[in-house]
């Protein structure tokens, strides 16, 4: 299994969601989400219907990747926080546990200072959550995720049917 592999159980999702919900509430943010470095959205909370979350996740990951490149040029391991300030909306982006991206979107109801403070607290909780998930995966490497049987059942015909529906 490569270092990027991560299997999240329902309870992990609930835990991550809970941390994000609290962060959103305490920081006055409109949307909070976790994205993997490949551009995939993992969990999101808030007014997610109002935004194109798929595009948001992909562009955030691109943004982080570009910034990682800049960091390397300067001899830094990473720039762990990015901030985009608009007239009404702002985006605070930070790296958690070196593998996931925490995105907080906030407007006038909040302030950068408050977001920073709450992100630091939530970031520590997320780090702990991911450390425990990783530890569990090392303990039970081929877990009972239900993944293996499901995909083993997929036939060539199932794949052929895609695109035709």
């Amino acid at each position, binding site marked *: 299994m490569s*270092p990027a592999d991560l299997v999240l*159980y329902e309870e992990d999702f609930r835990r991550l969601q809970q941390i994000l919900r609290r962060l959103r509430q305490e920081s006055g943010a409109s949307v909070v989400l976790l994205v993997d470095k490949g*551009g995939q959205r993992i969990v999101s909370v808030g007014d997610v219907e109002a935004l194109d979350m798929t595009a948001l996740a*992909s562009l955030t990951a691109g943004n982080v*990747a*570009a910034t990682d490149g800049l960091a390397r040029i300067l001899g830094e391991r990473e720039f762990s926080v990015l901030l985009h300030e608009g007239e009404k909306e702002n985006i605070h982006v930070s790296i958690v546990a070196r593998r996931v991206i925490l995105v907080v979107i906030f407007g006038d109801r909040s302030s950068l200072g408050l977001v920073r403070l709450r992100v630091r607290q939530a970031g520590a909780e997320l780090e702990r959550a991911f450390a425990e998930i990783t530890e569990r995966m090392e303990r039970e490497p*081929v877990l009972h995720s239900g993944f293996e049987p499901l995909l083993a059942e997929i036939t060539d015909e199932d*794949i052929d049917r895609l695109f*035709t529906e």
Partner: protein
Amino acid sequence: MAFVDFSAREIHCKIVYYGPGLCGKTKNLQFLHERTSPSRRGQLISLATPNERTLFFDFLPLDVGSLRGFQTRLHLYTVPGQVFYDAARRAILRGVDGIVFVADSQEARLAANVESIRNLEKNLREQGYEIAEIPYVLQLNKRDLSSAMPAAELSRLLTIKGEPTLEATAATGAGVFETLKAIARLVLLDLRKRRTPSGFTRATAAS
């Protein structure tokens, strides 16, 4: 880095279109975007220079249907083809599940194709992948041009591991969906082979 969400019953895969500058990667995505019903596609995002050369990437999410009750979503990316954008290419390969190499069929671009394949191999390795193992499809694009090399010869020169090879003219759309189907098939079969997915799985079973 495929993402399988057992609760929402969704599979997400990342496919990257790679190839030399002006070979037609963006054209592939534009055609797919034009010809897919709006209910099954997201926005096509192009991060391009003012003269419409890809600066960072194009991105198009497509819903290709249900696989055993799992909605299957493909996240399609292109890389900037110009040689000096190598850092951007490396970044986009993060978490990739499958690659379409778009070759420019013109004889004058043969060396650029070969160099781009070498570059892909190197960049994949830097991201921890081996080209021999990753789902990979070769598309011979611009078949409509009079300067196009014979497909058999081009294929012989560019094939690296007996990958599916498809002829296409992305400007008119010929071969574009066929290429996507070919890579989607390989990516999904690769997922089936793995004992656990690489990437995030949202599982339903309790630990």
